């Protein structure tokens, strides 16, 4: 189950149709301050990186007022892009959700501590991919049809003119106009043979001002249709691409939570040496994402993960040509592309530099799982080691001319042995070994870079569209 093409579809849709949408209360004046165009796109983008999410959390992550977010979400609910669920729950009930979220991030249980018996209504929302696919297709179909119909005069009532006395009739008068003698319509007043108006138009090209207006209108319509074809082509292409893919399905909120917590349990038991699992624990730099699908069958988990939004759910990161990380072993001779197409990403990174993104702050997850602490410790150790090694290398470089070959050699020799291990480890984890070394996700180091830059985003979008390259991941906060 690959979610990436669908996310791309959502993003293209957002930019094609919802770029200019403002959602505001009726009583608010139209000031530039309250102009929130573009919010819709931001919200949709954020949702592509989540599954079910509590709306309060989303608002916090996006630094939006929850009312504003709710208005936007309500709008999208009406547009059938988003499913929402509301329920009254205790503080504990809310915790279950948090636990589900946390569990999918690293397989921990959060402590279910104090609970209050106060009921609050919480709203959750989630993208409805299956419906989005249908809605977008239907929308395009209607747009095209409307223009074409107008162009072909499809739904217009035929008019008839009497060439003798100039009296006009419409097709609605047809019943009164048929004559018994022949197969034509006849004028009621002079019995002249009526002529269909379009025929007359075609006959006398040029015509009067009315005709000109009509021709201009036709040209305009044709123009619009053409523009639509061109401008929405990326969207239509994406629809075609997605056509035969299985649609990501999260189910209802309850079902999703149940699955997530079940997965959390199995994660806790069988954490083992499976790198794909330990990699989950590593994703501290990014957003801990709720669990998607069944971990056990998840195979196509790839290095594409490191592409700036470190963690989405693991299944999102399936990219076809990339070797799955569990296949990448120490000492294998792989190209960057095989490891996770770092090059293409780097290309994108130019425009989407602000991508270091982690708009969830849930990265501080306390663990009572012994295994995990160990893992994290090891990671921290490696990261520290790596940093040190880099420092040393730099120092060594400086000293190279001054020369003390023995020491530097010894150092690099020792540390390079380490580095191989480190590198493969990191490949498994992130597939991101060229880009941002320094930001290696050390356990406990919650990167809270959160940058929303709409311009940058627009650029990224433009680039992505221009290249029309499926594999390029241009997503960002």
């Amino acid at each position, binding site marked *: 189950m690959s979610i990436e093409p669908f996310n791309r579809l959502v993003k293209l849709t957002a930019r094609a149709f919802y770029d200019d949408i403002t959602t505001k209360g009726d009583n608010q004046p139209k000031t530039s301050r309250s102009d929130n165009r573009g919010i819709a796109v931001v919200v949709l983008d954020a949702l592509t990186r989540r599954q079910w999410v509590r709306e309060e959390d989303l608002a916090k992550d996006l630094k939006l007022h929850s009312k504003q977010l709710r208005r936007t979400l309500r709008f999208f609910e009406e547009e059938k892009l988003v499913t929402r669920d509301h329920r009254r729950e205790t503080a504990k009930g809310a915790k279950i959700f948090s636990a589900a979220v946390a569990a999918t991030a690293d397989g921990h249980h959060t402590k279910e501590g104090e609970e209050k018996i106060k009921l609050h209504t919480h709203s959750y929302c989630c993208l409805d991919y299956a419906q989005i696919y249908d809605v977008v297709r239907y929308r395009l179909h209607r747009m095209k049809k409307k223009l074409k119909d107008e162009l072909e005069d499809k739904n217009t009532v035929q008019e008839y003119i009497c060439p003798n006395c100039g009296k006009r009739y419409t097709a609605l008068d*047809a019943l009164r106009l048929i004559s018994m003698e022949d197969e*034509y319509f006849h004028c009621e007043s002079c019995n002249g043979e009526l002529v269909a108006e379009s025929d007359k138009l075609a006959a006398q090209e040029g015509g009067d001002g009315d005709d000109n207006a009509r021709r201009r209108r036709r040209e305009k319509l044709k123009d619009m249709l053409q523009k639509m074809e061109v401008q929405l082509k990326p969207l239509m292409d994406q629809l075609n691409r997605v056509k035969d893919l299985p649609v990501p399905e999260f189910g209802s909120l309850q079902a999703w939570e149940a699955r997530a917590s079940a997965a959390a349990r199995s994660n806790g038991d069988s954490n083992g040496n499976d790198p794909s699992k330990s990699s989950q624990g590593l994703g501290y730099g990014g957003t801990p994402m709720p669990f998607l699908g069944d971990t056990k069958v998840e195979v196509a988990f790839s290095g594409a993960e490191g592409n700036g939004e470190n963690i989405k759910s693991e299944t999102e990161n399936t990219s076809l040509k990339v070797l799955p990380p569990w296949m990448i072993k120490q000492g294998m001779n792989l190209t960057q592309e095989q490891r996770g197409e770092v090059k293409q990403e780097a290309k994108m990174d130019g425009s989407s530099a602000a991508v270091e993104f982690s708009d969830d702050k849930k990265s501080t997850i306390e663990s009572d799982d012994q295994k995990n602490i160990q893992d994290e410790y090891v990671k921290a150790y490696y990261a520290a080691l790596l940093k040190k090694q880099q420092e040393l290398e730099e120092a060594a470089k400086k000293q190279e001319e001054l020369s003390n070959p023995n020491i530097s050699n010894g150092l690099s020799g020792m540390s390079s042995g380490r580095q191989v291990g480190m590198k493969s480890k990191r490949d498994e984890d992130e597939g991101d070994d060229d880009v941002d070394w320094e930001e290696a996700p050390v356990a406990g180091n919650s990167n809270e870079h959160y940058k929303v830059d709409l311009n940058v985003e627009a650029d990224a979008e433009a680039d992505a569209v221009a290249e029309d390259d499926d594999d390029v991941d241009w997503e960002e906060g």
Partner: protein
Amino acid sequence: MFFHIVMERNMQLHPRHFGRNLRENIVSKLMKDVEGTCSGRHGFVVAITGIENIGKGLIRDGTGFVTFPVKYQCVVFRPFKGEILEAVVTMVNKMGFFAEAGPVQIFVSNHLIPDDMEFQSGDMPNYTTSDGSVKIQKDSEVRLKIIGTRVDATEIFCIGTIKDDFLGVINDPATA
């Protein structure tokens, strides 16, 4: 589109109908008067399905006729713009063709017939595709879309199109 609605009507009854069959007489007269009529607002009354109630009669001065307010349920048929209907072709000519869907008459002008169908005159005027595979003539059954209605107080006339997806001949009597 069909609707099942409740309507009301004042029935004037001649005194000779009074007696123990009064109620039956009112109902049968109502059916005779109402079924098959057309009102612009509700469309064609197809059938009366039940009597809700019959109010107190009011004797008219001078005539002896009595007016009963009658509430009745009935099925009505009201065509709408955009509605898809199946209809039987009744007449074909150079300007297009006429068809009937129950009580409703529909005219489809030739520019709303697909461009690949051409008019053929003769004994049995028809519209035919160039390969002859599809033919519209009298008694053909077509599926059409209503694009306009003319609603008078007592009459509804429609114009339709078959120039769209899934519209056109659905059953050809010639081949059947």
